[in-house]
């Protein structure tokens, strides 16, 4: 049973912070960070709640940053004029999306919609750039991890392309 005196105070806050740290640790770009460094990241993320069917990001909007699913489920969809709505992925707790927007402001390529009531954390480029300047050591750590994630994705895309080309030949 929850302690009536401490239940709403310090311990509950600490528990919530631990949960956030656990989620952040699951995200590859934060996985190498120490607890102290995670506290710095925790200070700049935005926690949001989305209702079922609510749009989190709109395709075509300028990219601002990435989102991490704390609790819930999110569908990544692409709207095609001919083919209509196409689901690209369904993501759940601990997954992340929109990470390319940490690097530039190019328009979002797909929309993200909450499939159920969801808790989401947003990590955005302006705060990331500010973090790189203020805490270069930490910033570089995150930046390197981001480069690793994008590199892996590029390698995977290359493999797929090679497979397609081989099939054509």
């Amino acid at each position: 049973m929850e302690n009536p005196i401490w239940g709403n105070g310090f311990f509950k806050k600490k528990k919530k912070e631990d949960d956030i740290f656990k989620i952040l640790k699951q995200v590859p770009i934060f996985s190498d960070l120490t607890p102290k460094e995670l506290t710095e990241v925790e200070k700049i993320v935005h926690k949001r709640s989305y209702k079922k069917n609510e749009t989190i990001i709109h395709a075509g909007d300028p990219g601002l940053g990435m989102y991490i699913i704390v609790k819930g489920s999110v569908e990544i969809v692409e709207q095609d004029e001919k083919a209509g709505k196409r689901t690209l992925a369904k993501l759940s707790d601990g997954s992340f999306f929109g990470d390319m927007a940490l690097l530039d402001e190019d328009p979002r390529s797909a929309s993200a919609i909450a499939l159920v009531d969801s808790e989401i954390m947003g990590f955005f480029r302006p705060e990331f750039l500010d973090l790189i300047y203020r805490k270069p050591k930490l910033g570089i750590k995150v930046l390197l991890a981001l480069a690793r994630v994008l590199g892996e994705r590029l390698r995977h895309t290359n493999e797929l392309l090679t497979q397609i080309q081989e099939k054509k030949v």
Partner: protein
Amino acid sequence: MDIYAFQLYSQILKIFWRVFLIILAIVFMVFAFPYVKDVLIMFIIAWLLSVLLSPLVNFLEHKGLARGWAILIVMILIFAIVGVSFSLLIPRIIRTVESIISKLQSDVITDYSLKIENFFEKNFNNAELGRNVTATLNDLILKLLGSLGEFFRSVGSFLASIVIIPFITFFLIKDARRFKRAFISQVPNRYFELSLNIIHKIGNQVGKYIQGQALDALIVGILSIIGLFIINLVFDGPLPYFVLIGMFAGLANLIPYLGPVFGAVPALIIAILNNPPNLGLVLLWIVIVFILVQAIDNAFVSPMVVSKSVNMHPLTVVVAVIIGGNIAGAMGMLFAVPFTGILKVASSQVIWGIKNYELSHPSRVGENLSKKDK
């Protein structure tokens, strides 16, 4: 499907309450303004200071200092500089302005009035016209100097009476991100990214603009002091308050087009009051110094430190200065243009947001909510 009037009732009620609350807020602000004016001014000054000091704090943090310590060091430094300069300068400025006023009232104006009256009598055979001209001129000069004295006196008492500004500044720098997060957490999801992006862009651009203006004013001030110091050396000290005049010229430079003229006037008046043997030459050199300072500022300093996006039409500047003067006197005139600049930067970012975010997207106008309701 047809929509009946009773189906719109809840929507109309919602709009009514929104409009009612907005009107209530406006009425409250209008009535509360005289009571919160001082606090508001304190917050504006503290905010300006926080914008100016943040880069220094960030730099120290970048060098490895904890943010709290970085803010504390910068604040102590600023406290010391501001405290020493104001305790030395403000009483001196007030004394200078008051002495100029009394000097003008006693002999110089009478002297020049007589000269002007004689000139009109000799050339136009109309002493009455001469008297009218001198009376208008006297009135104008005394009003100008009176408002100047009042301005410095109010700034002095203002700064002396409040030690709160540094505390507000401290917390504005320390908790800026927390305040921003708290504010943005209240924005509905559909406008979240748009608002966050616009707030960041406005913060960034306005910060750059304020820092650029401050740096520009500082450089113009220093250049004017150097120029006037050289005049003092060459002509055997016709400008005793050249440091103060230079500082004023730097501040006046916040007003484009008109600023340089405002900046040169005190130097010319003080030179005339001191009446050195080669007055004409001294006046000429003062004008040359201010033209040179402006040329250097326009050619090298401004393009580097002041954002080009804030270039203002001369007409905008004049209108802003007049409105600023009407609202808050000399202080209003000085800060009208920077304030207009801030508004311009902010509105351009809002327009950018409206252009780049699809505001008419179904999910932004409540399509999902209606789906959920069904």
